[in-house]
């Protein structure tokens, strides 16, 4: 007999934490010239907003944490202050 206990289990889905793009102070800007398409940024992005194929960043949800910029081995992602 398998009885599921009541507990918090969340399933990831787009916008699961709301429009996190509104949190952003710094925007990741990729220098496409230097980028070698290794995909590390997409792998590390905690919000999975970097498309693993096109490497396009969905700015509706990108919260500007800068992890992609930090992890990029080519140092080609600059965090640029948003003008609000």
């Amino acid at each position, binding site marked *: *007999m*398998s009885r*599921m*206990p*009541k*507990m*918090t*289990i*969340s399933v*990831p889905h787009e916008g699961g934490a709301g429009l996190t793009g509104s949190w952003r102070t710094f925007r990741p800007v990729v220098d496409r010239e230097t980028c070698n398409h290794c995909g590390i940024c997409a792998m590390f992005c905690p919000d999975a907003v970097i498309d693993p194929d096109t490497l396009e960043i969905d700015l509706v949800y990108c919260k500007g944490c800068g992890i992609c910029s930090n992890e990029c081995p080519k140092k080609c992602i600059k965090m640029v202050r948003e003008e609000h």
Partner: protein
Amino acid sequence: MSELIMSTGNKAVAAAVKMAKPLVVAAYPITPQTEIIESIADYVEAGDLKARYIPVESEHSAMTACIGASITGVRVFTATSSHGLLYMHEMLHWAAGARLPIVMGQVNRTLAPGWNIWAEHTDALSQRDTGWLQVYVSTVQEAYDATLMAFRIAEDNRVLLPVMINMDGFLLSHIMQPFEMTEPGDFIPPLDLPHKIDVNDPKGYGAMSPANVHYQFRFDMEKSMRASRTVINETEAEFAKRFGRSYAPVEEYFCDDADVIIVAMGTLGKEAEVAADLLRKEGIKAGVMRIRWLRPFPLDMNIKGKDLVVIDRDCSFGFGGVVAGEIQARYPDAKIASVIAGLGGQEVTYEDMAEFVRSRKMGTEFWFGIPQEEQ
């Protein structure tokens, strides 16, 4: 097949763990528990236990590693004591709240300051409200048997809460007694964790739980604690049927016709049986109730009309003996003489316990060893 061997309580717990075959053991050494995890490390090293042994840098990490392993649906064990247990505190709540059937050997030891490695129950009692089941054992055999049963109880889908097996430091952890190393066979069924992670269907665990649902998770824990009473009874009955050794949530010794009952946990509760024999020779109808399972708390103690001498190897400062207080709370009519004794390994003999009974003053609290005028 089973054999009778001489062993410390620590080694008996380790032997039971070997039989239960956890896949992951994560632990940090601390006296007087170290021998448990050293023995397990030896088993793993020799290939006698096919488990991943994770040495960690602290008890907080030990429990965290156990949580991470357990959520994958494998059987997990750890052991600790005293300050190590307290260092785990945050993660003890987490393990229970995440509904993980982790089993832990816990050797009861005094808390500092001053430094003291001898037996006291304050360490485990200060983790009373974490959602762990707590059993207190009194012999090396019981330490072995309770460890085997702990896996089955924790992993039962009606429970899915962690279990802590408490054993008095040195008085059991380092004392050798003969015990029967029973082969459990299929007594512990394979673990089927309904909420285990599935890498092909990723989910987030321990996400935000807002005010409109959180109480439901807590009530589910409470419901499982209540259900664990049935599971414990079933498991202990099945154990007795298969292996011939029977246990109850509260072990009774000559209680039926008793006028006065000594209530205690762990080794004191066993030693009290000798005190009862002594008192009966003097014409005092004494009995003993040894509380084994403190969580879930026993609700069917047959204490109506009897004097209780409750010995607490602990103190909740500004309140009194924890066990005495809990009995009073759940049995409002209970007549209790509370004794605080055995702190920091203070020696309490069966003669001392007989004297607690003879000189009991109902409704009072008595600190063993403190002069009457200072009480």
